């Protein structure tokens, strides 16, 4: 029954609810797919076979008893290994947490369980979500299902690859500078970074707390919306969680339209470093929006050219503070404790052994930016840039309803190409970072294949904070028009593994 793995989450939920399919058969089909292809893709760090099947049986029993099912009952999901899962390993892609079994569930994990979602396992990621390629995982890279020698994006490359290789119809990501959207773009899938504060960070391992945001990953805009509604909402356990109703994203995704909307094209997102085929597909998407009834407005956001620089000061600064908790005392790795060394020496030895190169670089960069003598010039200035970027967005949204841009300047690059060149790697997040700095909502959805390499290109849509539903309204309209033009969803063109 290979057909089951090609169903959307919306279809699976409807068929399980009606009794046409059981949660167990859906789960078994996806576990079989994982068994068949994940040796090549390496999307998963841990597959919870028994747990997934037990949960699927519980869903089927619940239905048999006539109880009300959760909104995504019986739909399998791949969970980024940054969310704690009670009794199931959580590594954050790092050796420092190898073998750690969290004693509690993240709020997001709990919400998935309450919605009767089937968690298949935990997906690979750049260590502590720091990276744009998943090559920084301590457990080896993940392949892009379109070309296994290329990166699936990062940090959420395991989640995006699991979707593109039909191992799961839904996945969870986290987006600090683009880690949901950039992987979605390079794998031909959909990824949404909700408004900052929309999805609880309780139990999500912290990297940069003022930027980190969990969000939905899927193969269709509607599926992303269905997952968005399940995971978003106020959580008293997260003091930065927004205490307001979740925007009506599912309704928006079911009623895609751009007629009468004003769509801004940010002119700073173009020029040197942008691949020709990416710009071609982007410009065609803008033309499509015009044909669908949107008014296109060119927008200038002059401060965006400093966004990357500000981000690579703010995120490392917050990370250097957040990762101080890995001190080898209460949980995680402890190295070099031979009875002769002090606690401080053991901490330093453990962190040297447990953290990979990118994490060490960012901890030192943050330590530098926050040190006296440099604080004002670096961290202080970066915070001012953050204000200027927020103002640019505010001005833009006085003129337009949403902004659009390419999600990432290039298609998926070969594994290894930028692995030891941090600045080249950082450029992958050029277009995604401003929305994190300002706390806006943003989506990436596929808009075609670049003619020169046949690899997916992502269209980014950015909406004001708390207006997440606009992403879905625009995204659903673009998706419907493109699918009609292509005659099928883009992923049908991906090679069979």
């Amino acid at each position: 029954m290979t057909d089951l793995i090609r169903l959307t989450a919306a279809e699976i939920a409807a068929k399980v609810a009606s009794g046409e399919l059981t949660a167990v058969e859906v789960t078994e089909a996806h576990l079989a797919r994982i068994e068949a292809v994940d040796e090549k893709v390496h999307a998963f760090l841990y597959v919870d076979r028994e747990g997934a099947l037990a949960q699927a049986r519980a869903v089927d029993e619940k239905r048999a008893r006539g109880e009300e099912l959760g909104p995504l009952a019986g739909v399998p999901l791949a969970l980024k290994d940054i969310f704690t899962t009670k009794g199931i390993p959580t590594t954050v892609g790092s050796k420092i947490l190898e073998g750690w079994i969290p004693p509690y569930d993240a709020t997001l994990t709990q919400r998935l369980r309450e919605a009767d979602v089937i968690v298949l396992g935990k997906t690979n990621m750049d260590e502590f979500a720091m990276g744009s390629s998943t090559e920084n995982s301590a457990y080896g890279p993940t392949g892009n299902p379109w070309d296994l020698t290329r990166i699936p994006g990062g940090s959420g490359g395991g989640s995006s690859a699991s979707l593109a290789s039909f191992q799961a119809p839904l996945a969870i990501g986290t987006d600090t500078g683009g880690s949901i959207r950039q992987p979605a773009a390079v794998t031909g899938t959909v990824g949404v970074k909700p408004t900052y504060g929309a999805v609880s960070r309780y139990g999500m391992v912290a990297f940069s707390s003022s930027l980190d945001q969990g969000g939905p990953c899927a193969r269709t805009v509607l599926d992303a919306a269905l997952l968005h509604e399940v995971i978003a909402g106020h959580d008293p356990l997260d003091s930065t969680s927004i205490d307001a109703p979740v925007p009506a994203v599912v309704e928006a995704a079911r009623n895609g339209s751009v007629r009468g909307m004003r769509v801004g094209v940010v002119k700073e997102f173009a020029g040197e470093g942008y691949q020709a085929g990416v710009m071609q597909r982007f410009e065609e998407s803008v033309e499509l929006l015009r044909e669908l009834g949107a008014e296109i407005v060119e927008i200038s956001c002059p401060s965006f050219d400093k966004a990357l620089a500000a981000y690579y000061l703010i995120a490392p600064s917050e990370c250097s503070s957040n990762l101080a908790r890995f001190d080898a005392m209460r949980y995680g790795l402890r190295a070099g404790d031979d009875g002769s060394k002090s606690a401080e020496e053991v901490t330093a030895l453990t962190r040297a052994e447990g953290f990979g190169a990118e994490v060490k670089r960012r901890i030192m960069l943050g330590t530098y930016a926050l040190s006296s003598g440099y604080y004002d010039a670096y961290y202080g200035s970066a915070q001012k840039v953050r204000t200027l970027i927020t103002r640019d967005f505010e001005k833009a949204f006085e003129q337009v309803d949403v902004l659009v841009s390419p999600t990432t300047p290039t298609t998926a690059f070969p594994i290894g190409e930028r692995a030891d060149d941090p600045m080249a790697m950082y450029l992958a997040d050029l277009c995604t970072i401003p929305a994190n700095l300002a706390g806006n909502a943003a989506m990436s959805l596929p808009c075609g294949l670049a003619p020169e390499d046949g690899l997916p290109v992502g269209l980014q849509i950015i909406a004001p904070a708390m207006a997440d539903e606009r992403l879905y309204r625009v995204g659903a309209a673009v998706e419907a028009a493109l699918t009609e033009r292509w005659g099928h969803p883009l992923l049908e063109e991906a090679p069979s593994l």
Partner: protein
Amino acid sequence: MPGITREEVAHLARLARLELKAEELDHFAGQLDDIIGAVARVSEVADQDVPPTSHPLPLTNVMRPDEVRPSLTPDQALSGAPAQEQQRFKVPQILGED
């Protein structure tokens, strides 16, 4: 703005509790110098009269009722401990011998 020297990187590593090897220091010094060179452009706005943004939400103190709630048991809290003794985290020596 000045670049970063190998000695400064060694100092940062000590502050950040990272016991780096000599070859790592050489490698990171070059890379950090490149990155700092690239991000230093934020200082173009240093003299502008712009308030800093530390967070996207206008946050004030968030309170909750001070009530007793279920929490982890001692066994659960210690379940990830590298070493434990008498229901406590066991750590290497913190103070010197003398």
